[in-house]
């Protein structure tokens, strides 16, 4: 794999040549712009200030916004996430940084029993405008407790929205939308993409509404529904498939909730074949829901069952040859798609 991957068809060029940013840079820019725009936006997390997190994604923000708005916390994920919930109710728009998405397991009570339900339980009186940024993704040899992609959990919970961008353009536009949204949103960032995925990002202010899928590549023969890191994999597989005469469409839901069912279903009604691929654990995850939605909505146009690929259903192992066997690859997708198209 090359060091960085250029992302697929970006936004419509807006006259000026678009800059190329990495995924991480796009996120930093979204944070900086929204913090400039709205003094109520604060960023809380472990080592977010001078260190800019271990991934260096928020590096530089403390210099511009000061230690009052870019706040280093103790290693108290539940405590500072809950604190952010209370602060969101009372006038701030906090963003919390969950260094590794695995630590979502530590904050589910604050996110699910508190943040997600407060608006509803109060009959609409209190609001919780906050963003929980969490990383996801494996292949960093970080082993079972630092490699999970747990976006299926919050996606299961009414009251939350869940964004899972795949390109710098989407990451910036979705993060800005999330920060301006009045609901608690869990925003997943693929660690590998931070430095590796590069793509065009316009200079001017834009937001991408939550709940709108994006067709990353148009095609006729088969739909590959892919999320986050898997979008690049799907695009790679599509290129391989093109060589054997299979024209694949790649659709990125961009948010798992709200879910743009219409775009997904329409794509499959057109292509009549579908594979859903996601980096979360295979079972009871993202692919089951999306495949079901598509199978229900496009049943009579389907040539065969909607197929699914997820992370191998094992804890993520450390050893490189083992870990590499757990993440869906272009080859996996290619093989499955080829078979489905009988080529």
């Amino acid at each position: 794999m090359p060091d960085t991957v250029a992302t697929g068809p970006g936004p419509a060029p807006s006259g000026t040549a678009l800059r190329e940013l990495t995924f991480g840079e796009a996120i930093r820019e979204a944070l900086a712009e929204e913090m400039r725009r709205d003094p109520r936006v604060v960023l809380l997390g472990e080592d977010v200030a001078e260190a800019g997190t271990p991934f260096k994604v928020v590096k530089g923000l403390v210099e511009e916004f000061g230690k009052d708005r870019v706040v280093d916390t103790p290693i108290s994920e539940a405590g500072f996430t809950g604190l952010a919930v209370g602060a969101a109710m009372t006038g701030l728009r906090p963003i919390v940084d969950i260094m590794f998405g695995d630590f979502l397991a530590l904050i589910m009570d604050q996110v699910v029993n508190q943040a997600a339900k407060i608006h509803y339980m109060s009959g609409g009186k209190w609001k919780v405008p906050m963003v929980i940024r969490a990383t996801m993704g494996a292949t960093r040899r970080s082993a079972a407790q630092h490699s999970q992609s747990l976006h299926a959990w919050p996606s299961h919970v009414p009251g939350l929205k869940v964004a899972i961008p795949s390109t710098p353009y989407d990451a910036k536009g979705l993060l800005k939308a999330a920060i301006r949204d009045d609901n608690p949103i869990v925003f997943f960032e693929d660690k590998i993409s931070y430095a590796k995925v590069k793509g065009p990002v316009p200079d001017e202010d834009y937001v991408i509404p939550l709940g709108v899928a994006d067709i990353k590549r148009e095609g006729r023969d088969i739909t590959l529904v892919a999320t986050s890191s898997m979008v690049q994999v799907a695009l790679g597989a599509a290129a391989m498939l093109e060589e054997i005469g299979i024209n694949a469409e790649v659709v990125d839901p961009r948010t798992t909730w709200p879910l743009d069912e219409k775009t997904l279903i329409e794509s499959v009604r057109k292509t009549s074949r579908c594979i859903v691929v996601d980096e979360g654990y295979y079972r009871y995850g993202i692919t089951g829901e999306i495949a079901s939605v598509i199978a229900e909505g496009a049943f009579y146009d389907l040539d065969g069952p909607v197929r699914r690929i997820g992370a191998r259903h094992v804890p993520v192992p450390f050893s490189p040859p083992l870990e590499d066997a757990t993440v869906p690859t272009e080859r996996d997708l290619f093989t499955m798609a080829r078979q489905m198209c009988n080529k």
Partner: protein
Amino acid sequence: MATAPNPATTGVEAGTPLRMYRQMIAIRLFEERVNDLYTRALMPGLAHLYIGEEAVAVGICEALRADDYITSTHRGHGHCLAKGAAPHLMFAELLGKEAGYCKGKGGSMHIADPATGNLGANAIVGGGAALATGAAYASKVLGQGRVAVCFFGEGALGQGVLYESMNLAQLWKLPVIYACENNLYNEYTHYSETTAGDPVARPAAFGLPAETVDGQDVRAVHAAASRMVERARRGDGPGFLLLNTYRFRGHHVGDIAREYYRPKHEEQHWMAERDPVALHAAWLVSEGLADQAMLDRIEKEVAAEMDAAVEFAQNAPYPDPQRVDEDVYA
């Protein structure tokens, strides 16, 4: 009825002993009606009564401004009333009616009200700890001078997030008071079986000033709370109050046969000797601030308002089932 005067906030001057009496009576009479509604199978769900603990909520909330915040618990009616909630909107909520504070979506354990700074009762033990800390954080960042009080039972001392919260509050000097209501029992288990060491040493270890207060003495509670609130408002950071109290009734209304976990004579002792309402009434009379006739009149007035509030709630309609999908997202 929507404009009914709130017995908790009218008729006597804020902060005075007489007003605290009125507030305590309001909670007591409110809870007696909850008990009645519940045992007559008119109230759905569970009801955790605050009877016996009135001096805690009242003593503390009387030290707060209207725009200060509280978080409350499953045993939250007293906190909500003391912070200024209107009984008729509370009863409506308890009965699951559209007119209730939460349109019937919250119920007894989730009364919430921005207008009175009530961030919500919370059915997760310890669930308010981080939330109150966050409200204090926002108040500080926004320079609002508001104080947040986190009410919780001593059972919440078992929840780690309380310590995470106190650490954050002390590090960042946040205006939050942790008010621990030690009524001796976590549900059906004595707190000594669940709580090692000395409870007030815990906040102290995180640097918080911590004070133990007789939770049956509303004036003592009010005085201690006032000191801590003032300190917090000044910017000197959080504090902790350990309020020794007792719930006179069961863990919830259905908890009738209690002798297997607490002796009758203990209950009798607290009810006979340590009733916060009776103690305060006696003091008012002995100080010449009220006579029995005046106290009786207050009680009668409050009772009438509570009865009207119940009637309002009983007559109010249920929400249209269609509305179940509203308020999931803002």
